């Protein structure tokens, strides 16, 4: 049986990759994908710790997160399309309408 620490390390690694993607990539589509990475890192942690604590709560919660991720992806892609229609760009650093 694989020790729980390994899952934690995998989760931490995925999370870090996701965060760095969100912070550094310019394409909003890539940023959306990085957010998916972060959510899935959380899912791995939830499932691993659920097995470690002998409780199904974590696994139930993971299913909620997956649902949430699907919804979030749908809304996010809609936003990106609306954005592209108005600004003809999907680069995050070109969108600064809320600047002071």
């Amino acid at each position: 049986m694989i020790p729980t620490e390994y899952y934690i390390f995998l989760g931490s690694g995925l999370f870090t990759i996701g965060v760095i993607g969100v912070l550094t990539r310019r394409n909003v589509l890539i940023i959306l994908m990085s957010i998916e990475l972060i959510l899935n890192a959380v899912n791995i942690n939830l499932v691993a710790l659920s097995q470690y604590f002998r409780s199904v709560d974590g696994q139930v919660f993971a299913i909620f997160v997956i649902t949430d991720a699907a919804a979030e992806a749908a809304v996010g892609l809609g936003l990106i399309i609306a954005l592209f229609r108005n600004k003809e760009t999907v680069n995050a650093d070109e969108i600064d309408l809320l600047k002071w």
Partner: protein
Amino acid sequence: MLNFIWLIPVFPLLGAAIQLLFGRRLSNQAVSTVSVGLPGLSFLWALGCFAQFLGLPESYHHVFLKPLYTWLPAGAFHLSNGSLGNLIVNVGMQLDPLSCVMVLVVTGVGFLIHVYSIGYMAHEGGYYRFFGYLNLFMFSMLVLVLADNYLMMFVGWEGVGLCSYLLIGFYFLRKSASDAGKKAFIVNRIGDAGFLLGVMLMVVTFGTLDFQHITEAARGGSFPVGSGVITTICILLFIGATGKSAQIPLYVWLPDAMEGPTPVSALIHAATMVTAGVYMVARSNALFSLSPTALALVAGIGAATAIFAASIGLVQNDIKRVLAYSTVSQLGYMFLACGVGAFTAGIFHLMTHAFFKALLFLGSGSVIHALSGEQDMRKMGALKSKIPTTCWTMVIAAAAISGLPPFAGFFSKDEILWQSFAGPYGHNKLLWTIGWITAGLTAFYMSRLIFMTFWGESHVPHDVEHHIHESPRPMLIPLVTLAVLSTVGGFIGWPKSLWGGEWFRKFLEPVFEGNPIVPPQGYGPGIEYFLMGLSVVTAIVGISVAYRMYVQRPELSNRVAAAAGAAYNLLLRKYYVDEIYDALFVHRVKNLGSVLAAFDLGVVDGGVNGVGWATRMSAELSRLWDTWIIDGLVNVLAFIVKLMSWPARILQTGLVQNYAWFITLGVLVFMFYYMLH
């Protein structure tokens, strides 16, 4: 017809309205049909009224009154004698023998002159405008003579003044014409002021303005002969008459009025309008008869004007100016007649003068027409055979004005001379002497005009000479008609001493009887025959002198002029009256105007501009205070806030990834903080 007597002035008014509103779009044919036809209709209507008037029963006392409506119900007020008066002014018509004569003369002569104008004005611009004004003049003049009260008479009086102004300035592009129009208008205004003051004084004295009531009051005996207020009224009215009828000192406008078209000179400035003053004095005969002072003034001014203007007429070279001074002189005769109490003789002369002076003017117009606009008699001569009709009709008119029997002027002028010699107010023989000398002068200058124009050698330039032609038929018919009237027109006043019926005097008698009578000075018929013969001889002498000087020995006139030197120049320059008036009044008034204009520009406008400037300056100050102090304070506050908000502001980049960085870093900071503890 009498009940519709108001149609007499309304016909020409209709014509004027048509011409002045639509005339521009009408053809010349239509214009002349309407504008000559309507005065003609008016003349026919006047004849009808006249015939009916003669048939009125005795109970009408020779006056037909037709009140139309109440114009000014002025209400009650106190008269100058303390009693209560109630002034009501009607618009109404009055037909009595005096206005009969005037209406027939105005419509008859006026109609003939309208016919003449068809030919004379045919090639002029503003054809419809000319006839519109002429019709308007007819209307005003008829209102003047048909009015039954002084105020309505004044309306007509002002109306004819306006038309006179418009028609003198008819060729308004010529500066001399528009100046002459203004001169006539302004000089007339001076007289009109006198008339108006007289009317006002009558209101407070009599409490009415109706001719009938005033005449009754004056003859009723409540005012003594020589009463001060009556004398004042008469003198004020006479001032009005001197303006309109061109007497000293207000005669200066009439010679200049010759700038207008010749039919206008004939109609307005010879036959009708200028006689309005005589008519007004005759109409006020009851008042004047109460004031020997005013009568003496009228007679004196009349006689002085007669000889003064005649002497100027001796040397003038412009054919129309000779006639203009002659008109002034003849009007002087009429006033002389009124002044010696012989109102009938004055009106008689007014009527005959309307015939022969209109004829003279129309004839001179025909001469001018033939010579393509030449008015200088020195450039005429020997026109007798070229324009015979014009020539012989003018000879008849000249004979009439010179007082040769049996032409019309003989009867009327002789009546005036006889009355000034023997009439009730013939105070001294000076008036008669002046009149007698003037008669000689008249014969001389009229013959001079005729001889210089029609006899002698031709001085017409060659390029004009072969254009000379007799005038068209519409111009000749009035000439011939007026020539007939100038010949037989005097017969209606054939004097008793020559076994005549004196029909004219008897006809007018109802208007003038009832005045306080000063018995005529008793002179026998012998002296009347003697004076009559004397004036005929004088006229013949005047004519023969002119014949000798201008036909037999033309060089003689220049020798006489050279010998008389200073006197000749004085006459030629019209006694320098225009220059004296310019220096005494015109320039003074102009200077006063300049001073007032300077005051207006400097003080009145300056004050307004100064207030404007002060307002602008205070607004500028207010603006500066607002921009620099009020706005400045607000801006400084805002600037401070802006400065202090700078560190916070730079955090808000608007880029979503920056915010994600802040969140991440914040989380990391907290994480390290708790891990280190």
